[in-house]
């Protein structure tokens, strides 16, 4: 019992510490390719510390939902990521770690953020909420198909994360099968959509009419904005951890926990570089081209499903 609590605590602290680092890596990559020096890789940490020290300005139109939403978003992202242990040595608590729980916790966080966007009574908030709910609704079928394929491919129909991890660890020969590669790229597109990266949404834009996620949180300031940003970094890490531990089943047979943490970090870095490359080489799509993007992600996951079950 104490061991489980310690594992959970270590997992949460580790995630909190490394989550903003990968956003910094993407930003540094973009600057370097554009021949700029760019901010340091640790800039997101400095931003968070600065935000915690700032005063809050709260709109008079808003209600308790506006004040509660950042904390609910942060806590649901944190609980969701605690369901995905970063290394195998940290698994052990299996009573609520379930892939469908992760999806529905993210839905909860998203609902609260969308309501907070509408709460301030500004146009940009409504626009951001509408677009955010649309984008997440369009990629949901692809996400569910990836989850169903991953949980059903072992022949045991279980969405429990421990069972899925065990299958991935015992079957490292599936790392480069077509099913895995198709699901990996489908998940990459879902990651881009859910963490608001180009081509779905530009995270560094200043034009409100082009924003999706930023427009929802336009009114937030101070520590509330810090919690939202931390929640966004953790949400990105959830999808990356899913991809690293389930869809890249290599390098698991290591006993030392620090070595396996290192391998995990290298895998996440590889995924981050992929996301950065996609960000550099595309532009932000029109809002009504996002259904095409989501459809391609869906087709990839359908092909992954078919190659797992039908084309054996």
């Amino acid at each position, binding site marked *: 019992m104490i061991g489980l609590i310690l594992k959970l605590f270590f997992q949460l602290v580790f995630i909190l510490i490394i989550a903003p680092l990968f956003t910094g890596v993407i930003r540094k990559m973009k600057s370097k390719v554009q021949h700029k020096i760019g901010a340091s890789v640790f800039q997101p940490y400095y931003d968070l510390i600065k935000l915690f*020290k700032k*005063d*809050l*300005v*709260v*709109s*008079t*139109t*808003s*209600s*308790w*939902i506006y004040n509660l939403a950042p*904390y609910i978003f942060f*806590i649901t992202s944190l*609980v969701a990521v605690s369901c995905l242990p970063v290394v195998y040595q940290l698994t052990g608590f299996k*009573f*609520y770690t379930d892939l*469908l*729980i992760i999806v*529905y*916790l993210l*839905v*909860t966080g*998203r*609902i609260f953020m*969308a*309501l907070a966007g*509408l*709460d*301030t*009574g*500004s*146009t940009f908030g*409504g*626009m951001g*909420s*509408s677009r955010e*709910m*649309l984008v*997440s*609704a369009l990629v*949901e*079928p692809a*996400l*569910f*198909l990836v989850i*169903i394929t991953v*949980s*059903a491919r072992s*022949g045991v*129909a*279980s969405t429990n994360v421990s069972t899925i991890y065990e299958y991935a660890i015992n079957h490292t020969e599936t790392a480069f099968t077509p099913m895995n590669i198709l699901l990996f790229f489908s998940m990459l597109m879902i990651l881009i959509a859910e963490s608001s990266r180009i081509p779905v949404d530009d995270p560094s834009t200043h034009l409100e009419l082009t924003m999706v996620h930023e427009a929802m949180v*336009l*009114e937030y300031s*101070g*520590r509330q904005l810090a919690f939202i940003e931390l929640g966004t970094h953790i949400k990105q890490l959830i999808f990356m951890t899913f991809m690293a531990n389930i869809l890249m089943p290599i390098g698991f047979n290591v006993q030392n926990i620090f070595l396996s943490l290192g391998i995990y970090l290298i895998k996440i870095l590889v995924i981050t570089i992929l996301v950065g490359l996609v960000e550099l080489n595309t532009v932000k799509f029109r809002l*009504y081209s996002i*259904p095409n993007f989501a459809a391609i992600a869906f087709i990839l996951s*359908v092909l992954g499903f078919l190659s797992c079950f*039908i084309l054996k």
Partner: protein
Amino acid sequence: MTANYFIIYFIICIIIYLIGALSSLFTFSVPKISNRLSNTCALVSSGLLSIAMIYKLFFLKDIPLAFKLNTNIPFLSLNFNIDNLAAFFILIITIVSFVVSLFSYTYMSRYFYRRNVSVFGCFYNLFILSMILLVASNNLILFLVFWEFMSLISYFLVIFEHEKKEVQRAGNVYVIMTYTGTAFITAAFVLIAYWTKSFDLNTMSTSSIPSNYANMIYVFLLIGFGTKAGIVPLHVWMPYAYTVAPSNIAAIMSGVMKKLSIYGLLRIVFDVLPGNPMWWGVLTLIVGTISAIFGIIYSLGSTVNIKKLLAYSSIENMGIIFCGLGMMLIARATDNSFLLTLAFTATLLHTLNHAIFKSLLFMSAGAIQYSAHTKSMEKLGGLIKKMPIASVFIFIGCLAISAVPPFNGFISEYIIFQTIINSIVWFAPLGRFSLVLLFMIVAAALALAGALVAFCFVKLYGISFLGMPRSSDAENVKEPGKPMLVALGISASLCLALGIFPKYTIGLIDNVSMEFINQKLLSTNWSLTNFMHYPLANNNLNISVSLLSIVVLILAGIVTLIVIAIRKRTSVQRYNTWDCGFTKLNPKIQYSATGFSKSIRIIFRGLFKPNRDLVITEGYGPYHIKKGTYTLSTEKVIEKYLYLPFIKAIINFSRKMRFKIQTGSIHTYLLYFFSILILMLLYYSFMA
């Protein structure tokens, strides 16, 4: 409590409903007293019956409760049988009617002295009574009698505000669709009785129905019960009827009356028809999936009226329940008992959960209409500050339907997805690839529907309750009265309780499924020391919402402590929302309900065919408009392209044939008599 005491208790509750109906009718001169009498009797009787049904399902689960009153009417014996499935559905009826009766105390006060509240109270009690007796009846003719009672009384309740033209039109559509469905159900029952030689459910010889007749019976039942359940394409009456009905009737109709079609299908298909080919389940699954997608897209894209949004959302949830039913039939056709139990649990659990949160949502639409005198979301806004307590309960309803943990919608969505995953794992090694493809499409469709439900209820709650009031009606809103608040609170706390402790609900449904299909879902005996972990029958599904809630609460506590520690160094300043420095903030710059869902209308424009029309009355050219009218309209695709051509063809045909048959001359009428007489004489002389 032996069976006899239970039956006497049941009959006493029926008599209390009748007392409520009659006493409300006799006190028609004082509407306040008649409202109170009818609602108190309904409340007391529903409360007593729900406690009795819970007692029956947990403690009397193996004891049959049947009673019979003999009459001399041929084919009709008043034969009632409350087995576990019937007890479950009576439980749903009585919980919802308990809460809605409490709600109606203050809700009907808007109608005092303007309409006949005492007749409403009488019909209300008779409506609930007919539904309970429908579920308890053991005879097909009795089932039909109570089905017709229920439909007729609900028609009168729906057209309560009958002097408005739109209400009359809605009533016409409703009654035509309902009676068409009833005709199909009657045809199916007559066929069943012809082959099994009996109308009583416990004396039927169920194995003598030949298979092509069984197929026809199933299609008739699907059409008949599907009309009442509101699956696509038989759903066209629902937006009309639910928009014009008073909100308490809409709550009962949506929460309970549609579930009776599920009861009818379960009872007839599983108790009467012996086995089923695979295509029954596949057809039900496809119909359910199409209803789910269609319902939620229409709910999102074409509604500004709160009750119409909730009506289409009911279509979506009934689609999900029909998906569960389809998976049950597929499992039964392949003799897989684990899948059958799982699908059965999913169907019944979603039935119960939907009844609770949909009645909560319709009551909240009623509370909004009562306080703000408007049903349109475009005129609301900022209600969260004016009715703080009610808005918390309504928020819980919106969260429950969007399947947010820890509310009850999440549990039923979870079990439905587990059913789909288990079906895929079962059918893939057997080589039934078309079924695996079908399940994949169903899973993707249900995932899309689930995400769009969240979108839809963010729109409902966000536009109506948050932001600034968009009209003077919304500015003058006050908190609704105490009975309404208590009713909303009871439903909301039921949503929360059923979500955090799903084990008790699943245990209850297990008692139903033990009797119905001889299988159980929960494998271990759960006790208080083991409340955190309860594996399902194949030891592969464990989820503990209680433990999840505990982890969330602990993390919330830690975050709160951190925030309290650091908040002393910063100050909080209240200021206006950022308006870009251009205009003063007014409610018109906020997003409207139409604008919020515009993206869905554009993406799914094949289903909506949106049409924009700008008529310039003053001004010249497209860039200098002084006054104009802008109209945005969507179409109801199924009504326009499926029903309207059919109706026009019938009307044209009858208009042409009318003058050829009813010529107005007495000679042709005499010729009709004479020729029929000759034909009958010839028939009997050759056939006898």
